[in-house]
């Protein structure tokens, strides 16, 4: 079991409010990603759940039991740190087994569990090496091994992949997701990378300025963002925002259209006229950055190759069903 509930959780450092009241229900076995720009409080929120920071107010329930006064080790959670935080003087075996040793398990049981965890993570040949003799990806796996061997109620990941290079990151992303599904253990994963969030999560928590902006499945966030912040944060390239006349026509202060929902036509069609400032040809996609005069810079995405170049005039037609409307305070207008 690993159901985690936050009720009005607050955290202040002196006069600075980092977390301004967070309410959250994390179902057992789900993979939840905290995402947001740096300084939004996502790591702090994770550390509060871990018990590495004390809450300033509110409750944290793990399987219905309030744990705010429980020390980290007694919460039954395990954490994977951004820096891996391996014990440099211990072998891989020592690192993975340290938590079990602290829990006072007999030696042969520790060995059995460590070897099982190592086998899951393809670490068996490295069990007697020191962390400094391992590559970045292997160190990361040791850190994950240390987390899984304790069979926790939930895993907490603090930007675990940000120190890896791009190719390895994608590979580890898949491994972590697969491992979590295989073990069925609740996971909370902090990242600033919205692609990681979209690909790994069952549910995403978008944080901004210490507040939860929206909590929902990746596609919910993509299709029905609750406000301008979520709309701009989720999706790559970023959603286009248009204010003024076109927005007023739709009865909104701002309208948003994702780059992939703009139909690109050569000059002369209807829609928004502009000149291509930059055209990026990736083969699989074509990204156009269009200077649309009073509307500002608009980004359009075309799936496949489109032979248009900087300086060409185009018109962009928003898909009427995919226009997001926002009021003056930035909240989404429905209906």
């Amino acid at each position: 079991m690993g159901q985690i509930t936050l009720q009005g959780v607050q955290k202040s450092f002196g006069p600075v409010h980092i977390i301004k009241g967070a309410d959250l229900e994390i179902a057992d076995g789900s993979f939840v990603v905290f995402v947001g720009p740096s300084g939004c409080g996502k790591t702090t929120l994770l550390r509060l759940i871990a018990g590495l920071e004390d809450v300033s107010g509110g409750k944290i329930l793990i399987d219905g039991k309030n744990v705010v006064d429980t020390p980290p080790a007694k919460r039954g959670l395990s954490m994977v740190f951004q820096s891996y935080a391996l014990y440099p003087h211990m072998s891989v075996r020592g690192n993975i087994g340290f938590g079990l040793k602290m829990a006072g398990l007999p030696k042969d049981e520790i060995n059995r569990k460590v070897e099982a965890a190592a086998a899951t993570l393809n670490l068996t040949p490295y069990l007697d090496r020191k962390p400094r003799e391992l590559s970045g990806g292997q160190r990361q796996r040791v850190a994950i091994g240390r987390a899984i061997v304790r069979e926790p109620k939930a895993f907490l990941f603090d930007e675990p992949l940000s120190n890896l290079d791009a190719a390895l990151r994608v590979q580890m992303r898949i491994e972590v997701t697969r491992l979590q599904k295989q073990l069925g253990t609740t996971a909370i994963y902090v990242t600033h990378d919205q692609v990681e969030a979209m690909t790994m999560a069952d549910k995403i928590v978008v944080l901004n300025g210490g507040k939860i902006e929206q909590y929902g499945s990746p596609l919910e966030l993509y299709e029905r963002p609750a406000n301008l912040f979520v709309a701009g944060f989720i999706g790559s390239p970023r959603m286009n925002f248009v204010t003024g006349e076109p927005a007023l026509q739709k009865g909104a202060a701002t309208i948003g259209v994702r780059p992939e929902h703009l139909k690109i036509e050569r000059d002369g069609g209807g829609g928004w006229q502009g000149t291509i400032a930059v055209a990026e040809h990736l083969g699989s996609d074509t990204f156009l950055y269009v200077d649309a005069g009073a509307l500002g810079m608009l980004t359009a995405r075309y799936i496949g190759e489109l032979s248009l170049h900087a300086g060409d005039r185009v018109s962009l037609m928003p898909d009427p069903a995919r226009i997001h409307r926002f009021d003056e305070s930035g909240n989404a207008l429905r209906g």
Partner: protein
Amino acid sequence: MARMATTRRVMISTAAAWLFGFLIFFPILWMGLASFKTELEAFAIPPSFLFFHWTTENYATVQERSDYLHHAMNSIIIAGGSTLIALLIAIPAAWSMAFSPTKRTKDILLWMLSTKMMPPVGVLVPIYLIYKSLGLLDSRIGLVFILCLGNLPIVIWMLFTYFKEIPRDILEAARMDGATIGRELVYVLTPMAIPGLASTLLLNLILAWNEAFWTLNLSTSSAAPLTTFIASYSSPEGLFWAKLSAASTLAIAPILVLGWFSQKQLVRGLTFGAVK
């Protein structure tokens, strides 16, 4: 071509390093050689390098004239004592500054270091007078005390940089793994801090062993360490190069041996904070 150029460059820099190393070592070598010469040969011009009449009479004379073991004992007590006391004070100080810093931590550290910028002679007279009225002149306790105070800023700085290098994440990982403070100390912190502690101890021991200003000024005989022992051979009655060399060789021998066996730790100590 490029490879050959690189090999040549490596050869040249290797040769340069050896030459430089030899230049630095030369005075010690010369001192060692001179200690086996007669007084006459010791300042003969041109000097003879290896082909002279080797004699150990200087060592015999030195041992006869002054009690080497007495001074060596003083050096051990003064260097060892001041180092141990400095560590006892510095470990908790550096610890708290590294792991729970406040707004003023950087200022305190800089202030500590700034005390090393003042020439010690600036406070010689007041210290001398204080020592005189407290009856600490020519006492081991007095020297232990002053050397401890003198090296404390460096010891704290070194330990601070070492402790700072221990990532907080690792301590937190240990907490998540269920280690209590005591077990965290035994299983995680101490093993990680030992290299730093060892090189701090060694470097401070050497600094204290070689310290000559305070030891020369505040001691005469009963508490006099090896520095005073050496200095007694450059006396108003004239310089005795061979005997001075013999005395110096004897004085640096223990620290030379210690340094030889702890090179690795020392290099790390000397470059502290410079490399991660």
